């Protein structure tokens, strides 16, 4: 079993939004970034995986097991961190932890204690008195303390300062020191993934645009800047998200060859960051409204 998560032909329709027949898989031992602008279907996909939403069609298997038939077994092996706090505000962190711990078969109290110490979690404080950063760290400590094989995170870093974000990324690196574990990390703040992600899956308007290793993605894409006259040639066809300015254009080339040809014709090429790639693919100029 090399894939920790497999999604095939998953479809879910709401009023005004359709997650349209998406398929992808997550190899174990890696961090997979799930990117896309807000409203693209990231949270919907995660909620379908967790069976918080009911799929219309398709298959989801986690650790090779159907996620509904083996729901309890699967959930015992998943750690989750969501973007909003859903813990009971009136409970102290310690009380909340005790409740969550009782739900898992393989709760590791020692591990939790060590995370709590490492993060400086004030366990006797009520959840409502914890800062946003502390709440995320609390969720993370819980997610990491039952020997989960798959960590699912939905926008865990939104609203956190850079110091805490970097701490969290370090911890994800720790998780995949074990090559049997995997991390699925959804975010619209792609700078978190620039360094640590192994694979990048981009979703947009309910469809998967690409699913590649981050290195491939960065290597084959280039930000192209050049004179407007270039847009009158056939080279235009190899460009994505063209934005015309007064003094030239800016666009993205999706292959090395295209970038080389454009450079030869007088354009400049720059290495993109993930954010650039996401932006160019979702630009209105592509005919996206």
């Amino acid at each position, binding site marked *: 079993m090399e894939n920790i998560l497999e999604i095939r032909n998953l479809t879910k329709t709401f009023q005004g939004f359709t997650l349209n027949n998406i398929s992808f898989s997550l190899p174990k031992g890696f961090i997979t970034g799930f990117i896309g602008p807000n409203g693209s279907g990231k949270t919907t996909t995660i909620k379908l995986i967790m069976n918080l939403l009911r799929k219309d069609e398709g298959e989801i298997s986690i650790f090779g097991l159907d996620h509904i038939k083996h729901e309890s077994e699967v959930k015992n092996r998943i750690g989750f961190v969501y973007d909003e706090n859903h813990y009971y505000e009136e409970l102290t962190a310690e009380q909340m932890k005790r409740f969550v711990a009782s739900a898992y078969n393989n709760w590791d109290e020692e591990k939790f204690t060590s995370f709590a110490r490492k993060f400086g979690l004030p366990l006797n404080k009520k959840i409502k008195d914890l800062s946003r950063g502390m709440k995320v760290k609390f969720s993370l400590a819980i997610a990491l303390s039952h020997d989960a094989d798959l960590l699912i995170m939905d926008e865990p870093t939104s609203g956190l300062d850079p110091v805490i974000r970097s701490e969290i990324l370090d911890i994800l690196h720790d998780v995949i*020191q074990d090559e049997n574990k995997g991390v699925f990390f959804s975010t619209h703040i792609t700078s978190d993934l620039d360094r640590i992600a192994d694979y990048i899956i981009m979703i947009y308007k309910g469809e998967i645009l690409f699913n590649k290793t*981050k290195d491939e993605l960065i*290597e084959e894409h280039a930000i192209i800047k050049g004179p407007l006259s270039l847009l009158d040639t056939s080279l235009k066809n190899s460009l994505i998200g063209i934005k015309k300015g007064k003094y030239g254009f800016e666009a993205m080339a999706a292959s090395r060859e295209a970038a080389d040809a454009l450079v030869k014709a007088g354009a400049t090429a720059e290495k993109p960051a993930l954010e650039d790639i996401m932006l160019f693919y979702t630009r209105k100029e592509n005919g996206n409204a």
Partner: protein
Amino acid sequence: MNIIISNTSDKPIYQQIADQIKDHIMRGALAEAEPLPSIRSLAKDLNISVITTKRAYDELEKEGFIVTLAGKGSYVAAQNKELLRESRIKIAEEKLFEAVAAAKAAEITLEELEEMLKFFYEEA
């Protein structure tokens, strides 16, 4: 062992890692049979992705600089002495060429340059 990664370099990160490890091996800073860090711990320490370090190691293995034993990790491969000497000579030649170019630019004569070379050779 130092490995310095530049994000602004045009060289892909895996290439930067492979080149630097190669350098360490050729200079003898990494001895034969010495274990290398695991791809996962190296990825963590360099704060980069596992796939990137894996690719660097694959590259090094392909070129015969390291060997990877399943379940045991990667080690510096037994280097072909002749090959190693050749590559070292090549490094010396490259550096000398740079020195000569710098000397010419500064209008240093061959005699003066030889004098310097002799001094450094005996001092080092």
